């Protein structure tokens, strides 16, 4: 394994954060919906919509706050449609979720072609730079600070927001009244109703929260490195986030770890391609987290059955 030092170094940590962030944001959104017992298949489409509007609004206004607002609001609009159709009109959650993903693909590609005359991608000539952390350059070669420098320098504000959101969602879910209500909605909606609350309203709130998270995640995908929208650029990140949330057992900190596992696989897969000495296939590296999630999920179900029988 002569290429190992080339792979495992401070730069890997930076790539890990970069890849983990959109997955983590998707996963946090799915934590809220899962706690209210909704499998959030629509996350992928919400993120894709957000990525498009981040670039479209940012290019039109040259403003970072407006680009972020465009991303978050467009994703929340998608989540509102999803919530309305599923929770008010009583549509099947899987079918409607797949529909949202198809709709997001349709809307973004239609606008891509209509507004920018391009079927595949849109790269604005000028685009405002998303707020980033800048560390002193002379940290780069120092022992401990160097590690921090390579990990954090140039990371966007969304990266740090996502990490803070993990703590915030833990507090919201386990230390506030609304969190108790949300979790009760998933476990025992009749009891929630008996307590004089409306489980449907609580579910709608969780779907809207997941839309906001999707908005941030989509913005990070579009604005973290290239300021570009590419057709179907989410490429499964929403589903990966859903998988990470399932792997993390729908808890914020469990989900953080699971997202990091998926992020690490992506970071490693990205880098092994340019290190021929390692002779590792990026496809197999990318495959691992899915297999691990499936196995973890199976073990969780076996445990649950044992618990029920005992």
């Amino acid at each position, binding site marked *: 394994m002569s290429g190992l030092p080339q792979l495992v170094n401070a730069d890997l940590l930076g790539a890990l954060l970069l890849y983990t962030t959109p997955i983590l944001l998707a996963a946090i959104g799915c934590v809220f919906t899962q706690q209210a017992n909704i*499998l959030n*298949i629509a996350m992928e489409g919400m993120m894709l919509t957000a990525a498009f509007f981040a670039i479209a609004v940012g290019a039109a206004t040259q403003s970072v706050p407006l680009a972020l607002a465009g991303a978050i609001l467009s994703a929340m609009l998608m989540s509102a*449609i*999803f919530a309305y*159709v599923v929770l008010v*009109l*009583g*549509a*099947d959650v*899987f*079918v*409607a979720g*797949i*529909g*949202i*993903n*198809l*709709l*997001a*693909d*349709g*809307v973004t*590609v*239609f606008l*891509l*072609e*209509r507004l920018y005359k391009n079927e595949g991608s849109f790269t604005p000539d000028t685009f405002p730079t998303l707020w980033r952390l800048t560390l002193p350059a002379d940290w780069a070669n120092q022992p401990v600070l160097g590690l921090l420098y390579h990990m954090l320098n140039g990371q966007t504000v969304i990266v740090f927001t996502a990490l803070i959101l993990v703590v915030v969602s833990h507090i919201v879910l386990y230390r506030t009244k609304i969190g108790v209500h949300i979790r009760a909605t998933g476990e025992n909606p009749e009891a929630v109703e008996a307590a004089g609350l409306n489980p449907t309203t609580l579910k709608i709130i969780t779907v809207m929260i997941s839309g906001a998270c999707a908005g941030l995640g989509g913005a990070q995908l579009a604005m973290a490195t290239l300021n570009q929208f590419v057709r179907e650029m989410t490429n*499964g990140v929403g*589903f990966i986030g*859903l*998988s990470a949330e*399932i792997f993390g057992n729908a808890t914020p900190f469990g989900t953080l770890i699971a997202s990091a596992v998926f992020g690490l696989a992506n970071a490693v897969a990205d880098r092994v391609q340019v290190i021929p000495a390692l002779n590792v*296939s990026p*496809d*197999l590296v*990318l*495959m691992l987290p*899915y*297999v691990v*999630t*499936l196995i973890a*999920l*199976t073990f969780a*179900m*076996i445990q649950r*059955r044992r618990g029920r029988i005992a």
Partner: protein
Amino acid sequence: MTRDSIPLDEENTAARFSGALRSVGNAVLQPIMTIVFALLIGVLVVVAIGQDPIAAYHAFLFGSFDNALDFGNLLAKATPLITTGICVMIAFRGGAFNIGGEGQMYLGAFWGAVAGFTFVSLPGPLLIVVIILVAAVAGGLWAAIAGILKALWEVDEVVSTLLLNYVAMLLTQYLVDNQFKDVTAGAPMTTYVANQAWLPQILPPSAVTVGLLIALAVAIGTWFLMFRTVWGARVRAVGTNRRFAQAMGIDVRRVLIQTMFISGAVAGIGGAIEVMGVEHRFYQSFSPGFGFLGLTAALLGRLNPWGTLAMAFVYAALLNGAAIMQIQTPVPNPLVNILSGIIVVLMTAQARPSIARFLRRKGAAA
């Protein structure tokens, strides 16, 4: 578990018959209303971008039927939707939601292609049968994993088939990047399958091949299996009420795994048809999401084999019409993606009560 075991209540036969008629009416009416609603929204979109909706919709709805070439292309587009749609239908009838058709199709296409360039000495028809069988087994075994996980430990098949989709696609990408790569080709793809396995076109110069007939045969075979055999009756019993099926002495777990196998096998056959009919080799990303498109067709067809078949053609007509519309008018082709999104979002919504309410209100006003 034959139809004879269901007691016949003479008195209620007429009532049941009219009830059945009504449910057929609803089954036909609701998807059509959803499609019409989506098409109306499409008119608004076309008007909003300042184009002529009549010209656009003429091309969109009727363009596929103008000439043999366009009609043949419609049939070619319907072919993979039939198999992926039937795949979803089978699993659903057995009480499982298989959204892994895409991955099962990838594995079927890949191993079918491998069989196609390995057994080159076999004569044409035999080789085609071998390719189809290999693809069916590959897709079937992949889906059976989700079936086993659900049968033994109640692992949610929506999640497991979704995860297995990614594993399958990364697996074929790995194989086609490495051991099975055609080194003379620029992109990651296998070598061509033997010439005698190339499915002939049936309406040249359009893209439709004998593969359409194979897909139709699979659909008819599936209908027979599901609705005219004891095995099919068991599957449907499990799908309707698992506990009741268990009480009837059906081995529910075994039936569930078998159902998933058959479901995946059909998706795998769809992959093989694409390989033999279109590119004559496997290449990664040969499918623009046929799995989800077929799922849409199956749901629009109310998970009935004939409905699924019909909706595969309707859906293909929309896809093909959109491509023609893009050529003939300035309306972009992705309009159809927006429309199919709207259709799927609303498909299972309970619109009927509100429509009934609307009609009542209208009646009161008059």
